[in-house]
């Protein structure tokens, strides 16, 4: 039997030149991907191919937003003929569901093509919003949090020096809790789905922390003590404490000192109530504004 293959969803973001068109993309969160790549090889996977995507410029995003409002949105196609059952699509970065409407300084610019839209439609099952600065689970997912962690349903994160948790609430606004920088707490998420119909029956693995270093640390744990999260499908939230970012690390070993605690491990939600691809993108571009 041939080993299953994984495919790397590649998203380029260049903060300093966001409006430059790229003839060829770089790689977002590459180090994190290589860590998880190693874990997947240990599980019998072999490398598939990299899928290249291109971030939209601000002008392109505005134009798409206009088309959404006119009901004329047409998504750019992506050749997915190679994808099928037994394959795994790996997305080693946050799904930027709400970056456009939140206008965060560290905004991820989505490619917003057909494949992106399929992944975003899945993301909307789990999140009311998800941006660099904040996340809010859907009511359905928030109800799965244990009572002591119910206030992790809405979380606000630092944006400048790392992505530490600043404060959190329950969905009803109660359970307010603030975190100091000394708490050094942050979150990681892992979404692992099997046999996704909209991906031609392929599996999907998305993992992220709110910042690049946090994503890398999570990936390192997925390669080491959290490897079991790659063995069965599920939606997992991991809270890291002692999440100190060293100034000039010579390797990823610093992440071993981060203390992971799984605060939610749930079966994947059924995929029968997915938004259409166009509706998923429309919500990304024209969702409720920040603070709504």
């Amino acid at each position, binding site marked *: 039997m041939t080993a299953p293959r994984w495919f790397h969803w590649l998203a380029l973001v260049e903060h300093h030149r966001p409006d430059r068109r790229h003839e060829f*993309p770089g790689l977002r969160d590459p*180090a994190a991907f*290589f860590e998880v790549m190693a874990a997947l090889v240990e599980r019998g996977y072999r490398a598939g*191919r990299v899928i290249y995507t291109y971030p939209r410029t601000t002008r392109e995003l505005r134009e798409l937003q206009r088309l959404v409002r006119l009901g004329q949105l047409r998504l750019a196609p992506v050749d997915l003929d190679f994808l099928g059952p037994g394959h795994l699509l790996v997305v080693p970065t946050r799904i930027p569901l709400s970056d456009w409407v939140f206008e965060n300084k560290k905004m991820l610019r989505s490619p917003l093509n057909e494949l992106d839209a399929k992944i975003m439609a899945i993301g909307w099952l789990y999140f009311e919003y998800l941006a660099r600065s904040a996340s809010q689970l859907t009511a359905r997912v928030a109800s799965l949090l244990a009572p002591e962690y119910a206030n992790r349903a809405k979380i606000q994160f630092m944006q400048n020096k790392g992505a530490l948790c600043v404060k959190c609430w329950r969905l009803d606004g109660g359970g307010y809790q603030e975190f100091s920088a000394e708490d050094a707490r942050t979150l990681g998420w892992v979404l692992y789905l099997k046999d996704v119909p909209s991906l031609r029956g392929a599996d999907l693995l998305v993992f992220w922390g709110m910042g690049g270093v946090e994503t890398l640390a999570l990936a390192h744990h997925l390669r080491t003590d959290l490897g079991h999260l790659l063995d069965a499908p599920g939606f997992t939230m991991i809270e890291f404490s002692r999440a100190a970012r060293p100034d*000039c690390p*010579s390797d990823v070993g610093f992440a071993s000192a981060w203390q992971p605690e799984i605060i939610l491990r749930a079966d994947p939600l059924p995929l029968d109530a997915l938004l259409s691809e166009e509706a998923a993108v429309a919500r990304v571009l024209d969702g409720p504004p920040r603070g709504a």
Partner: protein
Amino acid sequence: MPGHHWFAPYNRRRKKRKLGLNHVRPDGPAFAEIQAALYELDSHYGGLLPNSPPSEDELRRHSGPPPLLPNDGSLGRGDLVVMVGKPGLDEERQNDTIRIERGFTTLENKVEDILREYFEVLARSHIRLQRPYANQLRKPYGNRSDTTFTEYGQYAWYKECKTLEGTDVQKFDAKDRRTAAYVLNLPEIPTLRGADLLLAFGVSGNHTLALACRLRADLIHLLREPNFTILEISNAVQPERPTNLRFVSDWTFEIILQARPRVPAERAV
């Protein structure tokens, strides 16, 4: 054999902020291709070897170059240091616009010493081989020993090629879409405590990616045996914004130099 990823954050101009582990030059996808090939060759992933350039503030604190950051302590026999992307040896001296900034690490220094055996000049705009390797260029490519490249845009094409003596000058137009890629596979380097070194690069990031794609496919033999190889790339036609690298299989990669690298033991004699 664990393959360790030489990880050089990319910076066109030095920025005030320090570049971290999550910043990467555009050779990440190229490393992904080579990593896939190395897995096929039963190598496994060792981890990162960061080579982050210091910030402007850090550089200002020192009158000369800052002290070297040790980052090669964990290397040993059986390890492989994988460098994907052109190292920036001479870009400052060549006054290049596009530069790979120095990380001021011990590993960077040691690798630079090794590369000087092969390259008299190694910059984004200009590559000049050392005499022993220039002499081994295949005919009719003897004038590829001193080559200048276009600097603007996301590709580096030949501008001019000549011999080390300055003869046999050949001018190119960017429309010729001709360039070179380099592979150095060097085993058991004493200064790296017996670790091996694999370096693969095109002169621009996009050509590095194309080379990596081919190293994973029809050029995988270059990853198996020690060699110093130069490939000339032509017919490099690329569709706009491709979502995969299938088109690279139509590019012509012609080996114009394949030399046995001078292994460290020979150098010591």
